[in-house]
């Protein structure tokens, strides 16, 4: 179906761009004296992200760095996330949901597995904050598949 190809091309194009931006700007970026270092993985595929965060006294996120491996969707959503949280208070992280990231990617995801890809970076950041005593809502719940 020719129409389909065009749609797939365009949709994926933006995700691939974001993923490439992530590889260039954020992947491997080392945060000096990070306050938080946290690793999480997607047990379904073994993809892994490690996040490092530097926060100031006001709880603002001053620096973010990621290492690890992931598919284009997980890397693209990590890029969107970084743009959202850099320079913002950790409390604002609470307002970011997986669905919001997916909206910004401009793609439709209906596979439960791919939803986990899209949420991996957010989950890593939220869990990292939580494990270090910052009050943010539990990101794990978002990973639970819904019926209906």
């Amino acid at each position, binding site marked *: 179906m020719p129409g*389909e190809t065009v749609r*797939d091309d365009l949709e*994926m194009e933006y995700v691939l761009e974001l993923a490439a931006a992530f590889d260039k700007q954020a992947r491997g970026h080392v945060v000096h004296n990070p306050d938080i270092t946290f690793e999480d993985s997607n047990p*379904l*595929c*073994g993809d892994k992200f490690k996040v490092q965060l530097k926060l100031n006294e006001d709880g603002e996120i001053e620096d973010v760095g990621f290492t690890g491996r992931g*598919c284009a969707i997980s890397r693209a959503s990590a890029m969107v996330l970084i743009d959202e949280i850099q320079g913002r208070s950790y409390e604002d992280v609470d307002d970011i949901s997986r669905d919001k990231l997916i909206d910004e990617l401009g793609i439709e995801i209906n*596979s439960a*597995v791919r939803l986990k*890809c899209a949420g991996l970076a957010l989950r890593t950041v939220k869990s990292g904050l939580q494990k270090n005593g910052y009050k943010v809502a539990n990101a794990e719940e978002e990973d639970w598949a819904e019926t209906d």
Partner: protein
Amino acid sequence: MIDTRDKILEIAPESLDVAAIRQDFPILDEFENGQKVAYLDNGASSQRPEQVINAMLEYYHKYNANIHRGVYRWSEEATRGYEGAHRKVARFINAYTPREVIFTRNTTESLNLVAYSWGRANIREGDEIVSTVIEHHSNLVPWQVLATEKNAGLRFIPMTKDGQLDLTDLDTIVNEKTKLVTFSHMSNVLGTISPVAAIVKRAKEVGAVVVIDGAQSAPHMPVDVQALGCDFYAFSGHKMLGPTGIGVLWGRRELLEAMPPFITGGDMIRDVTLARSTWNDLPWKFEGGTPSIAEGIGLGAAVDYLTKLGMDKVRQHEIELTAYALEQMAGIPDLTIYGPTDARTRGGIISFNLGDVHPHDLATMLDRDAIAIRAGHHCCQPLIELLEATATTRASFYIYNTPEEVDRLVAALYKARKIFHLD
């Protein structure tokens, strides 16, 4: 090297009537994104034919009751259906008797049964357990747990570059300390068929018990547990046209008789006093609690279906389809195919990667063309590591798959090359 597949390959029966088979699987007429779904994820779970679904429906509609204790007709009929399924499975794998056929939930539970029951009674400090580097986590983790608990060693048969088990050092890996050797009959990532005869021969020289993970072989090729020469053989109903929630452990009677029970409670006992109990006959001694009755009956119907087709024909169909797919896929630039390239030495499972495209991203593209394949580590993280990949994409075939579906996969891979800028 002599192995059991030689016997199978001598037979060249006529092909399956795939068009007729597809009539029995209404799900294959379902549409996704405007096309019929090409279901190529049979290694994970197969579809079920009407005959299986109807056998289960009939139980629920007409004679639903618990088994073994009721003296009314429904219960007796349910007992006949459930026990009869054990007999069908026994014939299917050429067991000596249905008493050697234990119904579990799946391969994972079957292997755990051996690890917990046989393993805890027989493995001692300093003993060795031998597995391979290509195993599914189900046939690795239970042995890791057992070895740790018992302070026993765990050794692994390595793999050659082209994905076959490497038996060069078999005589040192399997030695006088070895008490148990376990390996998959067919790899769920590479499709490789293991050299059973050579491994069994060496294991028997040192008196080790042999466990075979048949999750991928029982559904796809003729299996004769007596000819294989193993002691335990495990497989899952849901990969062979049966329902989920039912699996099989076959074991040699004398071993099963000597083993302590695994899950204790109702149904598996003979006499119970407050102080102690004695165990029921085989296989019920290992089937504690109310079993999956409908699923057992469904598995019986699945075995009937496969037996009627003929497992040699099933195998032949998959050899032909896999050979065709390997040939078509070989021409795709940037495509890496893992595992042996001769379809006669492997099952209908093809793992691949397209350039450095992440398998998940590729799978999403294929899904848009209604092609259902699997992406990830396939529960074989150590093997994926050896392939120097982080994950693979996997297509796996069954009786209802066609060359046209292979063509759709190949076309979609060419399209994906464009989308991911590989050309």
